[in-house]
């Protein structure tokens, strides 16, 4: 099992290859990733949250859920983005929660994930966003995403 500092060092790069890192570290790293999200340092916590989703292990959705409650916008953005790597039934609630985030960037990323995850509740939420969001550009994006694909 990799130790916390090994995982931190792997994450604290300017550019990362997440799929490769997920293969190298595996689900054994999820406790360390959860600890790094909890540490509340946005530079590493955002990367830890995203990697947890890419690993798609048994506790990944718990790490992403923790990140979705971070006080740092960039960590919540990472949670919204990585949710698409996990089963929809595990993360639909997280994404719906982030679609109501006070930050427009977080809502936008959650909306994109909602469109990928599909599901009636998320589609209803997208349609509501298309009607009611405060940000005109996001209303437009949500309307496009809510359109049935194909």
């Amino acid at each position, binding site marked *: 099992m990799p130790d916390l500092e090994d995982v931190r*060092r792997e994450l604290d*790069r*300017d550019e*990362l290859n997440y799929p490769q890192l997920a293969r190298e570290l595996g689900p054994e790293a999820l406790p360390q990733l959860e600890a790094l999200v909890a540490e509340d340092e946005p*530079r590493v916590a955002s990367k830890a949250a995203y990697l947890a989703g890419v690993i798609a292990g048994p506790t990944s959705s718990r790490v992403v859920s923790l990140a979705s409650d971070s006080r740092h916008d960039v960590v919540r953005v990472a949670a919204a983005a990585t949710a698409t790597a996990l089963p929809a039934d595990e993360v639909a609630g997280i994404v719906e929660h982030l679609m109501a985030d006070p930050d427009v960037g977080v809502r936008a990323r959650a909306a994109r994930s909602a469109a990928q995850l599909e599901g009636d509740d998320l589609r209803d939420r997208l349609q509501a966003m298309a009607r009611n969001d405060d940000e005109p550009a996001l209303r437009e994006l949500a309307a496009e995403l809510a359109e049935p694909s194909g």
Partner: protein
Amino acid sequence: MSWSGWFNVSGGAAALRSPITAIARNPNHLDLFVTGTDRRIYSCWWDASSGWSGWFNVSGGMAALGSPVTAIARNPNHLDLFVTGTDGRIYSCWWDASSGWSGWFNVSGGAAALGSRIEVVARNPNHLDLFVTGTDGRIYSCWWDAASGWSGWFNVSGGAAALGSPITAIARNPNHLDLFVTGTDRRIYSCWWDASSGWSGWFNVSGGMAALGSPITAVARNPNHLDLFVSGTDGRIYSTWWDAAWGWDNWFNVSGGAAAPRSRINAIARNPNHLDLFVTGTDGRIYSCWWDAASGWAGWFNVSGGAAALSSPIDVVARYPDHLDVFVTGTDGRIYSAWWHQSEQVRLHVKILSEPTSVTRAAMLQGMQQVFASVGIDVTVASVETLNLPLLNDLDVGTCTRGNTTAEQNQLFANRNNAGANDMCVYLVRSTVPPLNGCAAHPAGRPSAVVTSVASQWTLGHECGHVLGLNHVAPTDRLMMGGGTWNITNPPPDFVQSEVNTMIASPLTQ
């Protein structure tokens, strides 16, 4: 490399801290003046056609060790020199292309403490104004005019300063003079003369203070603007400016710079939108930094490893706008020179979606400029623009691999206002998806990189290095290290020559 190494000028030597005066009568010629170790006044010259001459004593002149010799070229074929002689009298001599060197003569009976600097300004080719602190501590002036010869000395508006205090004079236009001096109460004073109104009284400049005798450096980048520089009472390097539209601003520390009290900060405006400063730092190393209208103040950097005794003045001449020659008496008492030539440049256009939170934007730019300048590549911030694109502020960068870009990257990188084909655009975003500190992947024909709000001081330079063709390396003291620029050891980080060659070969290095 933009900066040359230091070299000894024709075997010349002088007492430690001796000022070297350099003047360019034309872009292909330099004349140097110094008081040598035997107290004789020496000159030598450099000409583009013949190189450096040997040193020769100027007309038998002598002065106390370390005495400044001031020189001015009223026209390209004429030089006037001024010095306080070994008897404390103020002397001048001249050189003219038609007649050679004259003998020395006392200027209108003037006298000053040994080693006093005689300031001289030519408001027009047929007029000289001199300024000096006299033996009674009062500030004196006299003038020479081609039509009437030398005037007598007169006290300027009741001004006074400690014995030997240098007076700085500058002519923003032919009918105006501005003077600057550290007064007897250590406050920094100015007064002016205008052809229409005569001499003003002295006034304290923005509350500024300095040690007794501190030289004030003044530069007029244009006729309606002055920049002042001084080493303050706390040993930090300060500047303020005056603009005809706004008046005087407050003093501010220049990029964290420091120097021993009374150090002369030499400054030059190679063009109206650029300043270069030179000073001997508190560690005895020779430092420079610059200000550019587009990018503001850069950080200080050591010039080619140069060193000198504390407080040694560094004289600088710009024979043309892309070239600097600097001169100093080194720690071994030999006279050294180095030159800078602008040969390589990377032009950045900064597009702001989110300001960085981990370090300031200025620190990022300074970090990049510092590292690139060390290998002779200037980083010019050609424009700064704020983009209101909230849906691209957390940018999808996909795999962030060379040549592969997402729809969001393509949409963002289409914003290239002001940028030429070989200019780089850097987009400051809040975050990327997936989370990275930066990403240099860009579509062909749109050289670009993104840098996120959690990036380090070195990430900007690192990503631009990728855009210029560089790959990751293992050593942790290199800018391109793959282990994360937050973890760089022994900063500032380095390039190796092969990386420099790659960057210079890039069409983006102009």
